[in-house]
């Protein structure tokens, strides 16, 4: 059978073998947990504890500010030793709460198990918000916002994203293998909140064991597992919707415009935890891998754990890191140091040595058109980037710069090593600035 997919995209070496067979291990608590207030898209949370306070695991330490915002919780019990700006994965020092765990790891009182059958959609949504659930695929968009479609937008399909198209990452893969029941319990809750009957789980064909297991678990539940071609960026929302349903999200539109909501499998598991056990989001699964990591692993980590601690637990490094990436190699962000903490969006931590990051200097565009072929958003990266460099911002906008999903396919494939996606991102910033002004 021909596997479903979307037009464009490419296939970088997937490098999953390092960690795909490693069962999830629980990473021990570090000496200090550094919990940033900014770890979701939207307004950062506001600190509501003070230095010297004793906190319990799951206690709110940062309050949500506005609709597109979620609270932040203490990842373990212990003492607040500082409330101050600390280096954040974004590269800036941002407000954070530093907790020294007391080792007892005691949950805060009053966390109540809930019965999804008995709760209304609104009550479920509120539980999901209060638990601080965000998109666990790495984009960290608050989950309750996606689950609150505005009046008039009819949602008929829920897609679970188990694609994991980024090379190296295996966290979602292991989650589906080891906790299929949690994922499916989450699906049932999400489906009730949205009031949809049609549910798909998209999984790339390079995870046959996960496809088998999930298919078995899904029989009789009205959930269809869809094996997808192995291709990057299969897991990008718009591409995933196109591949599975054939519906195309319009330029400038959202998945809900075509009646679809996409949630990551990790998000579904977190939703189940939040509703069934009343537990806030304080941990996640993260793949620590890359040629420089002594022993690549899939880890269950507390949010706020410094990256250096994760690397240590994986046997340390085999040399001097030349590039540290949080997330996947295609869309993740390079880090300045291992001192930054893991956040809710930390799906992976990859370490590369100098030999693994070939550097070539930029050349002139040779008009090969490979970037255009690879672009899953069907825009012309080379033209937009050229306009961006000349500061011809309206022209870049006309050529669809805003449709760029920043997947990096064009930059990856470009034989001239042009920083295409960076130029387009620059143009997007300038377009938004221009729109704000007028």
């Amino acid at each position, binding site marked *: 059978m021909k596997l479903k997919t979307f037009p464009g995209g490419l296939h970088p070496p997937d490098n999953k073998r390092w960690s795909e067979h490693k069962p999830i291990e629980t990473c021990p608590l570090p000496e200090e947990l550094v919990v940033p207030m900014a770890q979701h898209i939207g307004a950062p949370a506001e600190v509501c504890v003070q230095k010297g306070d004793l906190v319990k695991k799951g206690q709110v330490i940062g309050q949500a500010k506005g609709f597109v915002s979620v609270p932040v919780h203490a990842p373990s019990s212990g003492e607040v030793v500082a409330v101050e700006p600390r280096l954040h994965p974004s590269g800036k020092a941002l407000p954070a709460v530093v907790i020294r765990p007391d080792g007892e790891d005691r949950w805060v009182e009053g966390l109540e198990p809930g019965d999804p059958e008995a709760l209304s959609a609104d009550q479920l949504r509120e539980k999901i918000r209060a638990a601080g659930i965000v998109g666990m695929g790495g984009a960290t968009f608050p989950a309750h916002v996606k689950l609150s479609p505005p009046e008039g937008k009819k949602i008929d399909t829920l897609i679970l994203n188990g694609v994991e198209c980024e090379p190296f990452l295996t966290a979602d893969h292991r989650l589906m293998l080891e906790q299929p029941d949690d994922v499916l319990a989450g699906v049932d809750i999400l489906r009730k909140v949205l009031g949809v009957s049609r549910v798909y789980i998209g999984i790339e064909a390079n995870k046959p064991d996960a496809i088998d297991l999930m298919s078995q678990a899904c029989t009789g539940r009205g959930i269809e597992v869809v094996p997808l071609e192995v291709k990057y960026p299969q897991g990008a929302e718009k591409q995933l919707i196109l591949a599975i349903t054939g519906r195309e999200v319009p330029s400038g539109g959202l998945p809900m415009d075509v009646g679809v909501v996409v949630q990551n499998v990790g998000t579904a598991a977190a939703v189940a935890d939040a509703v069934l056990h009343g537990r806030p989001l304080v941990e996640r699964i993260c793949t620590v891998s890359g040629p420089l990591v002594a022993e690549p692993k899939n880890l269950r980590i507390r949010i706020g754990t410094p990256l250096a601690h994760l690397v240590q637990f994986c046997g340390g490094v085999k040399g001097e890191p030349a590039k540290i990436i949080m997330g996947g190699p295609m869309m993740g962000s390079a880090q*300045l140091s291992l001192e930054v903490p893991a956040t809710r969006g930390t799906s992976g931590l990859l370490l590369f040595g100098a030999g693994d990051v070939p550097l070539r200097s930029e050349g002139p565009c040779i008009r090969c058109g490979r970037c255009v072929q690879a672009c899953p958003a069907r825009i012309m990266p080379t033209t937009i980037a050229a306009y961006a460099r000349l500061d011809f911002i309206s022209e870049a906008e006309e050529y669809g710069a805003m449709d760029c999903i920043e997947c990096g396919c064009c930059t990856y494939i470009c034989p001239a090593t042009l920083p295409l996606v960076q130029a387009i991102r620059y143009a997007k910033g300038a377009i938004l600035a221009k729109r704000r002004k007028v």
Partner: protein
Amino acid sequence: MLEAIMSLGGIGLSAAVALGFAAKKFAVEIDPRELAVLEVLPGANCGACGYPGCGGYAKAVVAGQAGPADCPPGGAGAAEKIANILGIAPVSADPQVAVVLCQGDNAKAQAKYRYLGLHDCNAAQKIADGPKACPGGCLGLGTCARVCPFGAIEMTAEGLAVISREKCTGCRKCVAACPRSVIRMTPLDATVHVLCNSTDKGALVRKYCQVGCIACQICKKTAPEAYVIENFLARVTYEHHQLAAPAVEKCPTKCIRDFVDGYPEGSSFAPPTCGVAPGAAA
């Protein structure tokens, strides 16, 4: 053949007559004063006046919507001429000049990471707040130099923007373009500046820059009226800039410079002629 030429000529002639007639009949009345004002403007169409180009400004001045001194590149000279044309009292414009408040080039200030992307400061700033360790330091990718309509900004070999006091007309385009707000407008007659833009504490500045202000207060002690220190950064109080010079020698990090002595090291500019209004030499 001859006929062809004749008839072509005929067409040309009749067209010329028609066009001439149309030009007379539909001519837009331009206030002659507008043209006169246009004459004295620098013609850079830089937009610093807030109007679309020099033409827009000329129109606005004549209509009384803008003041005669609102063209920064034109400076005092243009302001006076415009006032004469319009027959109003001359308004003195304070000539201003842009200064890069940083000396931390790639040789003197440290980088956070190796940047290999787009050669543009705004693009670089988007990646982990820019490659320079100092959060306020010049990134040296020359966005300001590219937007300057007067070619007044040059980049040194070590990656620092340097502004020619002679060529700078005070149009502020560079100020708007710089993502790190390193460029400030200063009165042209003030030649002493604190060339640093870091608001970090002294101990931290010492770690990443050899020429950054460490807020040691020595300048303020030497010339109390001429300096203020806010957020661990010294600044010349430009009302009292005449008193600032004695601190130049005293500053332990050499971040106070008197532009009468010349430009920051590494600059490719000729020594400036200070205190001369732009265009006044001509």
